[in-house]
């Protein structure tokens, strides 16, 4: 998985989309515990459109491609996830526009931009029991692996491991954002669906990386 930035972007987006569709029920069941159960459904319906319209997206450059994806997510995904995930893709696109080479460093900047977008849009912070609690630690781990000089497969696998550990750890948190926050202390004890989704996506990327590279 080197060289062509567009191929890389396509691989990542396609993997995210396929993972979202494949895990509709799993993500939905997680959201049913203290939320309203629609997370898997919302995500799957949106990424289904991404897959269906796959060939139609403008591939002038990575930034344009990601912006098109962002538009689909924002306009086709309802609930809280539409605006959040749409914003994440949009911010990543903006970063990619500035550094079209898509180096490891660019990827980290894109992920940080995505997380900041989510933070701003949802007024959530680390520890509020949201997808940020998997996304931010995983991004930090990618940055750390790059500093260590690890190769791509090692880096993404390490990020997946951290994402999973962090997602599991959300079970200990009390939800402060989203539907789950209304249940107060009762949200403690179950994992955050958004954080788990981030972990599952990183794992899928790590699993698929060798064959794709």
């Amino acid at each position, binding site marked *: 998985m080197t060289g062509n930035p567009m191929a890389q972007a396509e691989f990542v987006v396609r993997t995210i989309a396929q993972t979202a569709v494949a895990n509709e029920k799993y993500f*939905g*069941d997680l959201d*049913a*515990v*203290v*939320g*309203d*159960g*629609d997370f898997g*459904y*919302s995500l799957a*319906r949106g990424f289904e459109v991404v897959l269906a319209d796959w060939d139609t997206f403008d591939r002038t450059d990575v930034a344009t491609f990601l912006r098109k994806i962002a538009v689909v997510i*924002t*306009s*086709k*995904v*309802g*609930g*809280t*996830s*539409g*605006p*959040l995930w*749409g914003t994440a893709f949009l911010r990543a696109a903006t970063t990619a526009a500035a550094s079209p080479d898509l180096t490891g460093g660019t990827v980290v900047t894109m992920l940080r931009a995505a997380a900041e977008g989510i933070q701003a*849009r*949802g*007024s959530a912070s680390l520890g509020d029991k949201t997808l940020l609690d998997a996304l931010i630690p995983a991004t930090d781990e990618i940055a750390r692996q790059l500093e260590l000089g690890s190769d791509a497969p090692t880096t993404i696998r390490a990020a997946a491991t951290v994402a999973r550990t962090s997602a599991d750890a959300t079970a200990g948190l009390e939800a*402060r*954002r*989203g*539907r*789950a*926050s*209304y*249940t*107060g202390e*009762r949200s403690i004890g179950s994992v955050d669906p958004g954080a788990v989704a981030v972990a599952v996506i990183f794992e899928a990327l790590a699993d698929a990386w060798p064959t794709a590279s």
Partner: protein
Amino acid sequence: MKKFVNDPRQFVAEMLKGVALANPDTLRYVPAYNLIMRADAPRDDKVSVIQGSGSGHEPAHVMIVGKGMLDAACPGDVFAAPPMDYVLETSKLLATPKGVLHLINNYTGDRMAFDMGKEMAEAEGVRIETVLVDDDVAVADSTFTIGRRGVAGNFFVIKVVGAAAEAGADIDDLVRLGNKVNSVTRTMGMALTSCTPPAKGSPLFELGDDEMEIGVGIHGEPGRRREKLADANTIIDELLEAVVTDLPYERGDDVALMINGLGGTPISELYLLYGRAHEQLAARGINVRRNYVGDYCTSLDMAGASLTLVKLDDEIVKGLAAPAEIAIRTF
């Protein structure tokens, strides 16, 4: 799953089609945006009042579009806020020189969709103002969360704002009025059973035969706490205490009282609850001047109920008493 459903993904679309077919003269249906709007909207001489929110709360909001109520509703899928472009397109379609008023129940998803939709519609020249509804006393208004939820009390905001909009009020006055009604409206709900979203196909939570959830919202999310099932009087007294002491409503106040069914509770039981609530309010010296008993804002097929009080003044009473015509009707 004991529901009338075909493909669960078409549940909302098929319901909206039914609403449209049942009201061919008064409503227009735009499938692309789950949009139900008044056939005579937008009108240059009035502000357009629109509501979003997820589906699953019927009759709120698609079935309360009509004269003196909403001009349009563009729901998302079941329990999911509408995607941003529904809000954008609805706002553009309903744009009038007097502006568009967004009535939003206070949830993260709804607020984000309406914020983004508003920004983009404004960029295209639409004047938009916003009123947030957050009447649910079950959620402590903590600075750590987004704050109280909007639940059945939204009916009163819509009714009063809708009446004033129909009478030609300016958008600033509607914002003032909407905020005022919201500020004197409080609701508390509870569930006897969970509910089953069509796409999930099974109940959102499990409740034992001898259990109930106190302080539920309208999305099948669990409530604040689970208790042993109690008799009707005990339940209504608990809801009433939470609501009355919150504003608080006081001796001598005139109020509107709503007993709202959550979708799976028969109207016989709602009237039984109403009787108790009315008597208990009278015992507190609070006068029920208007009453509302039925399904106003539901959580799919949930068996349960919520109790809403609105403190009345002449302006609010005028809005509540004004004529209105909506999709759901008896005759």
